[in-house]
């Protein structure tokens, strides 16, 4: 696991305390997991993705990440309808490790308004929060 100082908290996205990020463009919110989560989980080897057209709810699980040592729920930062999933993850789940904010994105959700963002943390506040955490127990 990376040391705190080595972690990258992308300034362009907002964070949940369960280590997902969300970035809104128009009415589409892209969702992934952050550098802390991928680093703590270790190699991601399988991603359970939702179906396009299905609903996701803020704070509720929409899929899971399988690392060599553990399984983690993916919790949605927002409520809405899944309009796209990152198909590249079925062949290359390791994209989440190598590019958590880029090619390792997980789903796109169509939302109404941005009310859910009020509960999310900006990168500075999220970094402060992560500093208080014990490392995720990966075993």
């Amino acid at each position: 696991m990376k040391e705190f100082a080595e972690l990258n908290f992308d300034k362009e996205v907002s964070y949940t305390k369960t280590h997902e990020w969300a970035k809104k463009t128009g009415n589409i919110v892209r969702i992934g997991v952050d550098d802390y989560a991928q680093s703590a989980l270790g190699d991601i080897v399988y991603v359970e993705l939702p179906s396009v057209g299905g609903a996701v709810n803020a704070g509720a699980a929409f899929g899971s990440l399988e690392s060599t040592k553990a399984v983690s729920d993916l919790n949605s930062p927002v409520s809405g309808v899944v309009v796209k999933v990152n198909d590249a993850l079925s062949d290359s789940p390791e994209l989440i490790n190598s590019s958590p904010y880029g090619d390792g994105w997980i789903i796109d959700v169509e939302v109404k308004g941005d009310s859910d963002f009020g509960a999310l943390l900006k990168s500075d506040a999220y970094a402060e929060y992560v500093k208080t955490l014990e490392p995720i127990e990966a075993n």
Partner: protein
Amino acid sequence: MLNKTAMNAVHRKLGGQMTDFGGWEMPLWYPTGGVKEHLYVVEKSGVFDIGHMAVVRLKGEGAKALLQLCLTRNIEKLAVGNCAYSVILNDEGHVIDDTIVYNMGGDEYVLISNAGMGSVVAEHLTSRNTFKDVTVRDDAGNFGKVDLQGPSSVSIMRKLLSKGKGSIDGLKYFRFLGDYAKKDSAAQLPGDIPVLLSRTGYTGEVGFEIWSPFDRVLEIWNMILETGGDDVIPCGLAARDSLRTGAILPLSHQDIGHWPFVNTPWSFALPLDKDGKLTKSFIGSKLYDNPPSQYTLPFCGFDPRKVETDSAAVLLNGENIGAVPTCVIDMAIGRADGKVYSVASPDKPKDFRARGLSCGFVRVDKNLAPGTKIALKDARRTVEVEIVSDIRPARTARIAI
């Protein structure tokens, strides 16, 4: 406060993800990651710090008789230079620990057991000793241990050994050379480092377990990495756990433990003759007069999805029939046309890519034939897997060297 091996500072410097394993602070994986570490051992080789294991040494005329009483394995014919896998049971036939027993010659035996178990095993043996002239000693603090495992390990060891080099040609599985506690050991590494070099391991791949004096282990680690070059990387306990599971090897206190040792894939530890009758009596052997209906069986999944072992149930046609002591991912295997292949399988299909399969052991109250489909259910989901007779094909542990 966790125990630390002689290698602890090295693990931290390498960026190892550290964890508490049986009271020892050990690396789960290095920044390389558990997937690559697992694959490296199957295709090339990996070096592991295993200094958390325990060693108990027995010496004296009655040592063999004491071991015949306390071990399940019949060591009557275990020759000098040979070692064997055994379990140690209590009077009820429950497992205290598992061990590999080494016949050192001269009425001396070495038992290797698990992290934190040296004093427990030594006390158990001592408490059951009614034989003349036996000393039992927990050798904690006197040794270090690294394992070099994988197909490249043989050429690396051939290059490295300063004494005993010729002796590894033809060294068979479960044979060993030398003794880390003797200055004139038959196996030595450069710098006059006495080692016990054992052709065993916990990965299912060809390789060596190497014991040395505690303060020499770092030199050995470094010379293996230097001599091995691109053919070897440091590996952590996560890769060790997934490799041993794919090789159908048990983890003590998880797959075997304080329950009856019956109907497991490890019955070779029992002293059975061709008709399945016990060839000796030993502590715990009365269990086999009337064994319970309990079965530990290997399974393999259809994708990498795992279940939480603490909470998972085993469902057969919807009925709960047991628990899941181990569930990991063997990243060197995958399925093609319904068959499991390894990256090392000579007959793997063209373009085969191992995506990893979940695998492990179930402990159930029914005997299930290989091919039986069962469901593993935890709080998150239900994963279908099948009972198998073997997990990772094309393993190299037994090859001729």
